[in-house]
């Protein structure tokens, strides 16, 4: 395993930036404009990392409004590198991958994923609302990462997990040294400490039945959609034509199953007109139906929906964790 002394952090980011669009963590989101030292310390931004592979607004193609023709311009994306992305956000992307690559492959998602390198960082300090261990991952879960890093005292130690990951470490090789045996041991210790810090719940998904009383909590839901926009696994979108003067674009744009218009049919009929129906659909999709389809929960335990719901609707409570 390789190690980087934190004193070389600025140089490290600089080297990576020569080759990749480097995104890292700010308080609010993943951005190319981040503070090298802070990015290493912030646990997770308010917004999840899903935007990198599934942007909030994404053009599908352009069109010429006069000639009514589609204009496809296949532009080559440069490679993005997600620096210090956390295990739960990578898991979110793994879950999206299942949806977008099942049966019919979503080429926009697949291309972006293909063009992104994940240099993930283990969480040393999980927060109050983290519950990743209750949905079967850990603060040192690595699946989907190209490089896995752990911050150990004055250094960061790296493990390359894929070919792409090896190439990344090759690029910054001049700044790296071999990790000491102590550092490697210490990293393992940190992983276990963090795992123990995460609050663990015995969720009871069998209470998530159609007629359950738990859905009554929707009485206070604002249908604001914040939970869905911040959630790393929510993938609902709308497709609309946006027109400028002579040209336009067909775009896809995040939508939310918490909105009543989402399922409104042209006839006026709406199968999920009520908040109860919508909240029930969102939670049952994540914990019952997704489980039926893919044998796992569509939840990373990131706790964003719990932390940022303006009326404190808590997923943890819905799942029977107290």
């Amino acid at each position, binding site marked *: 395993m390789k190690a980087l002394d934190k004193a070389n952090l600025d140089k490290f980011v600089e080297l990576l930036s020569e080759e990749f669009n480097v995104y890292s963590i700010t308080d609010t989101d993943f951005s190319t404009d981040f503070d090298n030292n802070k990015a290493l310390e912030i646990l997770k931004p308010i917004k999840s990392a899903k935007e990198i592979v599934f942007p909030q607004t994404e053009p599908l193609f352009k069109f010429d409004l006069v000639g009514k023709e589609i204009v496809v311009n296949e532009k080559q994306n440069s490679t993005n590198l997600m620096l210090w992305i956390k295990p739960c956000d990578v898991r979110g992307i793994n879950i999206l991958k299942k949806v977008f690559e099942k049966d019919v492959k979503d080429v926009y998602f697949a291309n972006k994923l293909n063009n992104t390198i994940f240099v993930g960082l283990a969480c040393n300090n999980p927060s109050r609302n983290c519950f990743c261990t209750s949905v079967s991952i850990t603060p040192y879960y690595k699946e989907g990462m190209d490089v896995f890093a752990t911050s150990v005292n004055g250094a960061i130690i790296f493990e390359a997990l894929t070919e792409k990951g090896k190439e990344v470490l090759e690029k910054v090789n001049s700044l790296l040294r071999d990790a000491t045996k102590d550092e490697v041991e210490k990293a393992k210790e940190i992983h276990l400490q963090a795992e123990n810090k995460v609050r663990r719940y015995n969720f009871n998904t069998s209470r998530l039945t159609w007629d359950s009383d738990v859905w009554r909590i929707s009485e206070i839901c604002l249908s604001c959609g914040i939970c869905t926009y911040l959630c790393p696994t929510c993938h609902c979108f709308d*497709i609309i034509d946006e027109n400028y003067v002579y040209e336009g674009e067909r775009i896809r744009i995040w939508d939310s199953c918490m909105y009543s218009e989402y399922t409104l049919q042209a006839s006026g009929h709406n199968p999920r007109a009520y908040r109860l129906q919508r909240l029930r659909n969102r939670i049952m999709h994540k914990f019952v139906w997704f489980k039926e389809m893919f044998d796992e929960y569509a939840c990373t335990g990131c706790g964003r929906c719990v932390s940022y719901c303006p009326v404190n609707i808590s997923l943890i409570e819905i799942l029977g964790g107290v």
Partner: protein
Amino acid sequence: MVLQLNPYLPYPAYIRGIRDEVLDKRPIKTFTIELKDEKLMKNFTFKPGQCVMVGIIGVGEAIFAIASPPNADCIEISVMKMGRVTTALHNCNVGDKVFVRGPIGNGFPVEEWEGKNIVLIAGGIGITPLRSLYYYICDNRGKYGELTFIYGARSSKDLCFKEEIFEIERKEKTCHITIDFEEEGWTRHVGFVPDVLMKVSPSPKNSVAITCGPPIMIRYVIQNLHKLGFKPSQIYTTLEKRMKCGIGKCGRCNIGSLYVCKDGPVFSYETLQKLPEVF
């Protein structure tokens, strides 16, 4: 080819013909659409019951059941004027450009039904997928048993494919056409489709019943099919949900873990009865 790689990219097409079906405050027109690329048009294969997304640049896309049979040299859809896209389509002229994605959905399990008697029960514009199915069965008559066709609309003016329906009536032993209320000069059935179904009372023996129409009609038709002895596995219907992507990604058309756009729109009642909030 790029088109096949990107499921969101539609095929360029144009409108070859337009026919008025119903003139009402919710008018219905049938559009004959042809893909620009002849080879693509030839290779555009589908099953009765499958759908297409038809779009107009700058307006958007909407999904329609394919009304034409699989062996036709074009794609026919019947469109009721409802909102943005359907209104834009109604304003189109012959020769206008449209864009097509598809085929979408599962279609009717026509192979499974071979050797069986077929009962088709349609209401209003719900006849479109059953028209495709009817012509498919006509082309493969030897493979199927007896055919019963029941079609109803609010009034004689609301019948889609009127001439064709009367032609089917002449050709088939058991074709029943009904309108909701008495009209001067109308000599066929009067009454709702579910009631006419009881009058006709097709035998469930070695049969499948396929029904398509407004949700309320479907509900009563299914009830009555039960009374006639049809088992849930012998009853098929198509569902409608608001749709965008048509390929199980955008999330909005789900019923539990099923997506109507990709796992449907055709479902057996055996599947539907286990699901919550079907309509």
